[in-house]
């Protein structure tokens, strides 16, 4: 596996996952989810490895990765801030929350902060509309977020 510029243990883990799949046909998206969980993002080498391992054309893997917004080819920060931009959140000012995160972290949507601590992303409706506007950091949901709250949320994660 030396041909891939990837962590050996992680690659082994992914390989084991793929080997253990009962149904390989059509498993590409589940495999990509697993790979993104393991590596944090889907680099070219990860995609190539999956393509060759599963006998799927690399172009197809790339086509799939770029189609789904859940997959990313960029390294992600230690903490991923997801701002919900569903309608319910939008009408309750999610755009202002997003702007505040961008301002305080000084990065654009989809990018990672210079210190590698944060990535800001948006997503479409997590189905917690009752709590709009909603922010999710590393899977933890913050509801009814106000612009003033943003600084506090960032602080919570800056410490570690």
């Amino acid at each position, binding site marked *: 596996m030396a041909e891939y510029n990837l962590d050996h243990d992680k690659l082994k883990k992914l390989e084991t996952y793929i080997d253990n799949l009962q149904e390989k*046909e*059509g498993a*590409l998206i589940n495999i990509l989810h697993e790979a993104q969980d393991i590596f944090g993002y889907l680099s070219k080498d990860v995609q190539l490895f999956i393509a060759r391992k599963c006998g799927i054309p690399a172009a197809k893997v790339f086509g799939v990765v770029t189609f789904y917004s859940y997959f990313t080819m960029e390294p992600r920060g230690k903490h991923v801030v997801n701002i919900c931009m569903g309608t*319910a959140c939008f009408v309750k000012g999610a755009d202002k929350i997003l702007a505040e995160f961008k301002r305080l972290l000084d990065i654009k949507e989809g990018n990672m902060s210079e210190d590698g601590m944060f990535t800001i992303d948006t997503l479409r*409706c997590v189905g917690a509309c*009752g709590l*709009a506007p909603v922010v999710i950091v590393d899977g933890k949901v913050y509801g009814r977020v106000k612009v003033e709250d943003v600084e506090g949320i960032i602080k919570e994660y800056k410490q570690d």
Partner: protein
Amino acid sequence: MVKYRMDLLVCGGTGCQASGSSEVVETFKKEIEKEGLENEIQVITTGCFGFCEKGPIVKISPDNVFYVEVTPEKAVRIVKEHIIKGRVVEDYLYKEPETKEVLHEQNEMPFYKKQLRIALRNCGFIDPENIYEYIAVDGYQALGKVLTEMTPEKVIEEIKRSGLRGRGGGGFPTGVKWEMTRKSKSNQKYVICNADEGDPGAFMDRSILEGDPHSVLEAMAICGYCIGADKGYIYIRAEYPLAIQRLRIAINQAYEFGLLGKNILGTGFNFDIDLKYGAGAFICGEETALINSIEGGRGEPTVKPPFPAQKGLWKQPTNINNVETFANICPILLKGADWFSSIGTEKSKGTKVFALAGKVNNVGLVEVPMGLTLREIIYELGGGIKGDKKFKAVQTGGPSGGCIPAQNLDTPIDYDTLTQIGSMMGSGGMIVMDEDDCMVNIAKFYLEFSCEESCGRCTACRVGNTRMLEILNEITEGKGTMEHLDELKELGQIIKDSSLCGLGQTSPNPVLSTMNFFWDEYVAHVKDKNCPAGVCTALLKYFILPDKCVGCTACAKVCPTNAISGEVRKTHIIDQEKCIKCGACMATCRFNAITRR
């Protein structure tokens, strides 16, 4: 078995007990005994009728008469008049506040038309991670009944007779869909549960999966039995980790209990269910796109026909229903098609779950019989508009739907009426907008969504929607013309007409419906270069009110472009040319001297 000629149902709910229902029960029992009718009349304490405000409540069956605020004294008179003489005591009946009209029957009363939980029946009631609890509430009984007592044809007939239509948006009759898939000949067929709830602002499927996952598994197995499939997939959004976790637990338990897998309940029927994850693509809610995604490809839709019922997953006949549709199956089979079809409107049977969000007080999920009006949902269940603002519109059907204005608040909603007023049932998202929402901006929001979520395959959607969005941008930036408005309408119509899949065919709806109902607002943006709701930044102007400005210079100091000038203690003024409309001055002013128009 004793048969009573009359039942007195006394509400024993918390509210009614607090207002003295137990005394009322005692009085009834005493009075009936006194009259020697205890073998004819039965007094029953029931669960909450849900109308606690007017408690204690008493219902007389089979007369279907409904008394409110019953006291022991009133009880005495009810026994004398109604039970003995057969005369309804009009004075004690419920009076609708506005009309003062006396209503006899429970189901005529507005409150009782409100929520009825079928799909959500177990949500919030049982522990979703404990299969015993699901079994305790008749879980897997419908599957058992179907496998042991009914032929697939009979089940399909029952579903058809119930009038159940797809809850994912299209509203296609579920039974007919099952029948089509059953009739397609193949050795391998599939059942797919569409749990890719992508509408921004809808979360009923998530709720069902998190609160009652077994009900979906059971219904899928029933569907498999009916169409002749032994394999099912649940295509679920990756954004729903909790739902995924609960589904996994439920599937494992069902296998362990022999309710999935081989030889279910000893009947020889086999059925497997696997999870497939979505990855953030709204278009995968479309059947053919979803199938492509399950096959591990890009979620691009393909031309229909052939329909999935003929050629679906791996080119085999496939039946796809969404979560809420499946959640309705078991009650229909246990309680019968007649029961189900007695609920709802003529062409839309049963209930629909709506996700009520936006500017309403009681944000949440409501499940109501078809045919309720928007007003009832928003004002009664939703508790009205937040902050006592003025209602402006309600958006239904997500990016495929439209905005419904105040004038249509009293439309009884079902699949067909919503389509008639230019919107859609969709998956049941209901976003309430108030006077602070700009309808042009809302239309833009939805179109932006459709543009981002377009698969990019067909010209109409890929390029057409982009061009529409660009025109809308011009309008919100004050560069719009009346020709733009005509262009929008025409292009929108053509995109609807020419797009390959449901996304494109409906994506112009938010624009077209807002243009239809809020034409003046569009004209204001174009002609007056004004955003009446004060949302479109480019069209806003900031002014300093001379009578309020004290000349503190605070605003001038924060203005990033030095657009504010004025001497100390004298009225300041904003140079409109320089102003970038950031609003910093307004936020700073402590004297409310800055206004935005």
